[in-house]
C-alpha cells in the first residue's frame, strides 16, 4: 500500500465526512433550533478531525519506518575495521537502498528467479530505469530483499492505522455535530495554528541555514584547523583522489576575502556616485514627466537576472577593456579580460538601481520645510542639497549603501563569469582575482565525494559569507531605524 494511496483514501474519508457533517447540521437547522455555527463549519470540523491526525501519523510513521529499515540493514552488514566504518557504511546503505528500490520495480516472475550475484542483477535493474554504481556486492541482495519485505509490511500496518484513525476521527466529529457545538471556534482555532505554523517557516529557514552549514563546517574543521582557514593566505584545495588521504591542500580564506572585498569596493566606487547623483537629480530636479520615464528605465536594470550581467561582462565588457588597453599600450593588453575591473564595473551597473531607488526614497522623505528654509536664506538648490538635504538624509543613505554593499559581497553569477578563478592577493585591478562565492560554486559543481574537506570547505565559506552579510544587514537596519524618526 503506497503512502500516496493511503493519503488519497484519508482525504476522501475527510471529504465524505465534510458533506455528511454539513448535511447533519442543515438537518438540525431545519428542525427549528438556531445552531451556534453555520453548517459548513460543522463540515469543516469533521474534515479536520478525520484528516489531520491521520496525516500527522502518516508523516511520523514514514520517517520512523525509514529509520528502522536503515538500522535493520546496518545490523545485517558485515563488520568492518573501525577506521572506515562510518563512510563505508553510509555508502553500502546507499547501495542497498538503491538495490531495494530497483527490486521493487520487478515483476513477480522476475522476483521469483532473482539472480544471486550483483553482476547479473545490475543490467536487469538498469533495464528498469534504476542505474546503480558498480561497487555493489553479492551479500547486499538478500539484505535488499529483506528491506523490501519489511518496507511492505510496515507500510501496510501504517496505512491501516492511518485509515483507522481517519475513520475514527470522522465518526467522532460526526457524533459532535449538534445545535450547541461550537464548530466555528474549533475550526478557527485550527486555522490560527496553521497561520502561526506558516509564519514560523521563516525562522525554520534561518535555523536550517545556520545549522546545516554549521554541522558541515564543524566536520570541515576536524580535518583543517580553523586558524589555517581564517588566517591562511594560500588557497590551493588540491582535488585529491577519493580516500588517498595524504595530500590535504591549503584552504586559506584571506585571498578569497580580499578578492570579494576588492571587487565589491570597485563596484561601489562605480555605483555610489552614479546612483546617488541619479537619485538626487530625480528627487530634486527632474520634472514629473522625466521622472516617470527615467525611474522605470533605471529599475529595469534591477530586474535583469545577474546571469545576464555575467554574460554581458564575459562577451562584451571584458573583451572591450582588453582591446582598449591593448590599443592604449600599443599592443600589450594590460587589462585582462577577466579582471577585478571588469567584474567591478558590471556589478556596479547592477547596483545602480539599488543605490538610486533606496536613496531616492530617503531624499524625498526629508521634509519640505528644511529645503524651504535653506532656499529662503538665499542658497542655490545645489547648496541646499549639499548642505541641508544630504546631511539630513545621511544616516538613511549610509544604511542603504551598507545594504547595497552586502548585496555586492553576496553576488555570484557576475563574478563566476567575469572575475576569474585564480585565488591570489594583488592590488592591481587589471588582474583576475576570485571571490568566496566563486569558490563555493567551484567546489560544489561536478561529481565529488561529499565528505572530503574539498567540498566541506564550501560550507565554511558559505557560513563566513552568511555572517558577513548578516552583520552588514543588521547594522544597516539599525542605522536606518535609529535615525529615521529624527525629521518626522
Amino acid at each position: 500500500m503506497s503512502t500516496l494511496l493511503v493519503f488519497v483514501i484519508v482525504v476522501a474519508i475527510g471529504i465524505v465526512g465534510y458533506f455528511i457533517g454539513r448535511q447533519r447540521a442543515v438537518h438540525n437547522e431545519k428542525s427549528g433550533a438556531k445552531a451556534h455555527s453555520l453548517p459548513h463549519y460543522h463540515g469543516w470540523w469533521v474534515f479536520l478531525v478525520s484528516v489531520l491526525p491521520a496525516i500527522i501519523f502518516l508523516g511520523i510513521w514514514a520517517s520512523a519506518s525509514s529509520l528502522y529499515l536503515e538500522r535493520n540493514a546496518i545490523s545485517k552488514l558485515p563488520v568492518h575495521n573501525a577506521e572506515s566504518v562510518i563512510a563505508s557504511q553510509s555508502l553500502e546503505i546507499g547501495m542497498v537502498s538503491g538495490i531495494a528500490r530497483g527490486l521493487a520495480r520487478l515483476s513477480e516472475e522476475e522476483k521469483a528467479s532473482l539472480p544471486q550475484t550483483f553482476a547479473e542483477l545490475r543490467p536487469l535493474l538498469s533495464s528498469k530505469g534504476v542505474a546503480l554504481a558498480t561497487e555493489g556486492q553479492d551479500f547486499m541482495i538478500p539484505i535488499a530483499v529483506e528491506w523490501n519485505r519489511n518496507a511492505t509490511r510496515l507500510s501496510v500496518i501504517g496505512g491501516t492505522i492511518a485509515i483507522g484513525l481517519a475513520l475514527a476521527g470522522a465518526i467522532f466529529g460526526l457524533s459532535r455535530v449538534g445545535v450547541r457545538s461550537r464548530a466555528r471556534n474549533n475550526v478557527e482555532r485550527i486555522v490560527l495554528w496553521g497561520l502561526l505554523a506558516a509564519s514560523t517557516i521563516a525562522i525554520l529557514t534561518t535555523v536550517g541555514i545556520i545549522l546545516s552549514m554549521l554541522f558541515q563546517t564543524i566536520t570541515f574543521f576536524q580535518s583543517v584547523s580553523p586558524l589555517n582557514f581564517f588566517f591562511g593566505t594560500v588557497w590551493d584545495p588540491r582535488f585529491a583522489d577519493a580516500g588517498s588521504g595524504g595530500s590535504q591542500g591549503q584552504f586559506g580564506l584571506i585571498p578569497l576575502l580580499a578578492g570579494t572585498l576588492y571587487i565589491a569596493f570597485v563596484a561601489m566606487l562605480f555605483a555610489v556616485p552614479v546612483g546617488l547623483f541619479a537619485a538626487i537629480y530625480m528627487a530634486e530636479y527632474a520634472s514629473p514627466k522625466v521622472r516617470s520615464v527615467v525611474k522605470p528605465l533605471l529599475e529595469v536594470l534591477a530586474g535583469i537576472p545577474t546571469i545576464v550581467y555575467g554574460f554581458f561582462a564575459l562577451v562584451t565588457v571584458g573583451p572591450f577593456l582588453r582591446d582598449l588597453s591593448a590599443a592604449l599600450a600599443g599592443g600589450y593588453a594590460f587589462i585582462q579580460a577577466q579582471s577585478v575591473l571588469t567584474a567591478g564595473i558590471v556589478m556596479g551597473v547592477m547596483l545602480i538601481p539599488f543605490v538610486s531607488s533606496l536613496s531616492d526614497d530617503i531624499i524625498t522623505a526629508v521634509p519640505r520645510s528644511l529645503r524651504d528654509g535653506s532656499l529662503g536664506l538665499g542658497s542655490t538648490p545645489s547648496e541646499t542639497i549639499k548642505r541641508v538635504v544630504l546631511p539630513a538624509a545621511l544616516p538613511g543613505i549610509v544604511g542603504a549603501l551598507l545594504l547595497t554593499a552586502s548585496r555586492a559581497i553576496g553576488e555570484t553569477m557576475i563574478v563566476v563569469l567575469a572575475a576569474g578563478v585564480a585565488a591570489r592577493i594583488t592590488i592591481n585591478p587589471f588582474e583576475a582575482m576570485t571571490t568566496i562565492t566563486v569558490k563555493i560554486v567551484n567546489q560544489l559543481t561536478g561529481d565529488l565525494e561529499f565528505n572530503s574537506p574539498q567540498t566541506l570547505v564550501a560550507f565554511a565559506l558559505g557560513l563566513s559569507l552568511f555572517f558577513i552579510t548578516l552583520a552588514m544587514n543588521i547594522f544597516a537596519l539599525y542605522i536606518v531605524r535609529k535615525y529615521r524618526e529624527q525629521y518626522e
Partner: protein
Amino acid sequence: MTDTTLNAPAVAARPARRDIGLKRRYAAERRFKMYGIIAIAIGIFFLAALLYSVISNGYTAFWQTEVNLAINFDPEVIDPDNKRATDPSVLLTANYPVLARNALAEKLGVSKTDRPAMREMSKLFSDGVRGQLRELVAANPSLIGTTQNIWVLTGADIDSAFKGQIDISVEESRRKVSDRQLGWMEQLKGEGAMTQRFNSGLFTYGASSRPETSGLGVALVGSLYMMLIVLGLSLPIGVAASIYLEEYAKKSRLTDIIEVNINNLAAVPSIVFGLLGLAVFINFFNLPRSASLVGGLVLTLMTLPTIIIATRAALRAVPPSIRSAALGVGASKTQMVFHHVLPLAAPGILTGTIIGLAHALGETAPLLLIGMVAFVANSPVTPLDPATALPVQIYMWANEAERAFVERTSGAIIVLLLFLAVMNITAIILRRRFERRW
C-alpha cells in the same frame, strides 16, 4: 519648482551690487545638475549597451540555416543484410549520415570516390541528421526505398558563415570554413536549396555538444515545473504567514524575532539558499540531485520573504474601517480576514507574487549547487527527473567556446528577458487596473 522662485528675483535685481560670487555659485549649480544628468545617462547607456549586445548577438539564433536534400532511403545502406523484419534494432543503428552525404554529393556533383572532397562536404550538414532520419524511419518504415525531400540542419560553422558571422577575408587556413565549402554554400543558396528557417529546435531540443542541435527544451520544462512549485508553495505559505503577522500577532518576542528574520532572509545572498538546499534537501532528505523539485523548494524559501513583505504591505493598505465594519455586523475575526480583508488585498498580493516569481525565474546561483548544471538530453517527465533551468542553461552555454554557442546563449537570454518582461508588465497592469486608493 523651488528653483524658479529663487532664481528670478536674484538675477533680475540691480546690476551694480557688490560681487558675492553669484556667477561662481550659479556655475556650481549648473555643474551639479549636469552631474545628475551624466549619472542618469551612464545608467541608461549601460542598459542600452547590455540590451544591444544581447540582441545583436542573439536575434539570429531564432533562425537556423537548413539545406534541402532529396534523400534516397536506400535499403542497401539502412539494412544491408535485410534483417529488419526480425531485428528492429537495425533501424536504430543504421548509418543514416551516409544517406544525407550521398544526397548532397549528387546535388553538388561531387564524385563519391573523391574522399577528401566527400569529407569536406559532409561538414555542410549537421551530425544531428542521424537522429532526425532515424526518427523518420522508425515512425514510418515504409519510407525505406523511397526518395524524400527533407530539410536538414547545416553544421554550426556553415550556419555562422551563412549568417555572415565568419570573416571571409581571413586567410583560408585560419578560419573554420574552407573556400570550397563556401563555394558549395553559395551554389546551394543560388538554387534555393539552402536557406534560413525558423529555429523551432531552440525551444524543443535538450542538451547537446553540437550547437545546432542544442536547445532550451529541457530548461523550459524544468523552469516551468519550478515556477509551479514556487507558486504552489510560496503563495499560500506567504499569505498565511503575512495574515498571522499582520492581523493576529500581538507584539511579542516571537513576532519580533519572526519579523527581523524575514527582513534578514530577504537580504541573504541567494547562493546560501543553494547550500541550504544541498545540505537539507539532498543530503538529509535524500531527494534526487538535479531534480526540479529540489530547485523549486530552494527557490520557494528564497522568494518567501519577498512575497511576505509584499503581502503585508497589501494587507496594511486595507483601511481599518473595513475591519471594524465587518466585526461590527457580527463577523468573527477569521471571517473578517478571509471574507473582507483578503479579497481587497488580493491585487497587491498577486502583484508581489508575480514579481517574486520573476526573481525566482532569473535566479541561477542556488541552482548550480543542487546539481542543475547537468547534461540533460531528455525532457523531464516528473519534477523528480533531472532537469535544468533557463538561467542555468544560459550559464552552461556561456562557458562553451564556439561562436555558435554565443549566438545560442544570447538567444536564450532574449527568451528569458521576454518571459521576465511579460511577467513584470502583467504585474504593472494588475496594479494599475486594480489599485484602489482609500
